[in-house]
């Protein structure tokens, strides 16, 4: 048997496996979409009843659903912004320079990925509680994080998102733009001009995708929210409580909406980064 036939057979086998895996991945998504058009007839939307557009017509008819969604979107937006602002300098430094302590900073970035989220959430919870009971911490934080609420959830989500911004920016910087920077400096450009005209266009897509990822992770996250939201109505924790009493089809509608919104955001970010890459083709090649 020639190697070409073998490759052909292997290609066929992996295509079949990819097909099965896609079914596995999309089965829950399709279930969600189908059940958003369902009228279960009872309080729990787990069984197919009759087709209905009712939930789509009145998506926020469930009390508190609108508030929960709004709060989650606010937290996601603020966390994404903060993570982008804080993460960019570190990602830039890690990608561009070798310096003493680089490994330690790199390791710090890796902690959120290597710690069970429940432990991180628990640690933040008891720390926030401590800021209310230990006098020194209380004056230091001014009671910002306790009682738990927006500030504590945003702090938690930003911390998680920071790593992703740093990794994304770092990846954009590595091996890029150094010759351009040298040329600019030889022509007398100041440090700020170099950053604005050379580095910023290179790292902007990284900042953007890191920020969007933080937004998506914040909206998606259950565990950290569970530990740090306290009594604030956030979508995932509110839903967790609701599910004991009822599961209206509106939940599937909102899930589908989040899905479509995120797809749109990804499309926009892909388009933006392609345009950026087109602006500086010689850099992307390296």
């Amino acid at each position, binding site marked *: 048997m020639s*190697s070409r036939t073998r490759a052909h057979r292997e*290609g066929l*086998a*992996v*295509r079949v*496996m*990819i097909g099965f*895996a896609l079914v*596995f*991945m999309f089965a829950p998504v399709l*279930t*969600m979409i189908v*059940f958003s058009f369902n009228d279960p007839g009872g309080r729990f*939307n*787990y*069984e197919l009843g009759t087709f209905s557009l009712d939930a789509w017509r009145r998506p926020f008819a469930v009390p508190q659903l609108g508030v929960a969604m709004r709060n989650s979107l606010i937290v996601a937006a603020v966390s994404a912004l903060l993570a982008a602002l*804080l993460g960019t*300098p*570190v990602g*830039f*430094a890690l990608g*561009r*320079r070798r310096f003493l302590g680089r*490994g330690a900073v790199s*390791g*710090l*970035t*890796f902690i959120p*990925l*290597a*710690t*069970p989220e*429940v*432990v*991180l959430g*628990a*640690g933040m919870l*008891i*720390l926030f*509680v*401590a800021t209310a009971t230990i006098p020194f911490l209380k004056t230091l934080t001014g009671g910002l994080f306790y009682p738990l609420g927006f500030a504590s959830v945003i702090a938690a989500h930003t*911390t998680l998102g*920071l790593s992703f911004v740093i990794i994304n920016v770092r990846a954009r910087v590595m*091996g890029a733009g*150094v010759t351009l*920077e*040298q040329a600019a*400096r030889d022509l007398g450009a100041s440090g700020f001009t170099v950053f604005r005209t050379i580095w910023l266009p290179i790292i902007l897509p990284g900042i953007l995708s890191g920020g969007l990822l933080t937004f998506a992770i914040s*909206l*998606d*996250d259950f565990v950290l929210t*569970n*530990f740090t939201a306290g009594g604030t109505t956030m979508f*995932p924790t509110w839903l967790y409580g609701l599910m004991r009493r009822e599961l209206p089809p509106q*939940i599937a509608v*909102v*899930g*589908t909406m989040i*899905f479509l919104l*995120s797809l749109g955001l990804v499309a926009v970010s892909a388009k933006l980064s392609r345009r950026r890459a087109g602006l500086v083709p010689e850099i992307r090649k390296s």
Partner: protein
Amino acid sequence: MAEVVPSAKAAGARSPGARAGWPEMLPTLAWLAALLVLPLVYILRMSFSADPFALTATGWSLANYADSIPFYWNNLLNSVLIGLSATILAFAVAMPVAYGISFYGGRWKAVLLFAFFAPFLTSYLIRIVAWQTLLGANGPLFAPLTQATGLEVRVLGTPFAVVAGLTYQLVPFVLLPLYTAFNRIDRTLCAAADDLYSGRGGRRGAAIGAAAGLVIALLLGSVFFGGRGLAAPGPLAFVLATTLLGAAVGGTMTERFALIVFPLSRNGFIAAAVLSFIPALGDYVNAALLGDIRTQMLGNVIQAKFLVELDYAGAAALSATLLVAAMLLLTLLLRLIRGTELLDVV
């Protein structure tokens, strides 16, 4: 690339802008120290606290560990076994996909890869709700089956449902590092292997595959049916079938994958193992919503103790145990590769 890197180093040595940039990094590092390092250190401190129901750490004691670990041993075991099962199954799903997209994706690479991440653009909890729906006895899968055959199916509330839900959540964490690693492999090596008549696993591959299949079958079997429940016709048939499947996969796997792609992407495999097993170890929502009382993991206990019982010290001892287990595993795996390379494949 080869020309850029040395000049980058040279430029770094000369260019006036090549300071480390500590002032710009300072706010971020302070943030990470306060909100990432401090909470983890405080968990460790709290786990040695003497007063179990105080909200801040006071005094020193080992009682929290002595009291909680033996008592919640089964939950700890559940975390490790269910987490390990889900990680292995996530590899089984994601490995062929990553290989297939990287080597046979052609111009569809980006689209295919995105298709595997798109389902994660919904909400974590809603994905689990969807699994509850799918696996329910009256759900869209099993209701028609029961109607047609009269068989009662109970999947929801079993360890199988927890493993299935968790596997689903882990697939992207395995897929991305593996895909990145596969993509970096020099294709000329593969072409060379083909020219040198690399074949399939054959008998040796089948033997290795059967052995791996048997080990995995015993692990999955003991999770699904319980350690003692294995000695029944159904579970034994499951073990036999999985072993045979392992032999079939091992026997037909190309040498190109087994002898070139696999060894060259070792770092990707290690990163994937870290990024999937550690979240699996701490997960509790899948166990809470898809399992029953016997499938509760350590995360469920930690969550209940922190948020319901307010037993901070006891919960901190269990969290610290989980944290130390994760760190030990990480150090062990990181000894195999350099830590900075791990970041490259994330």
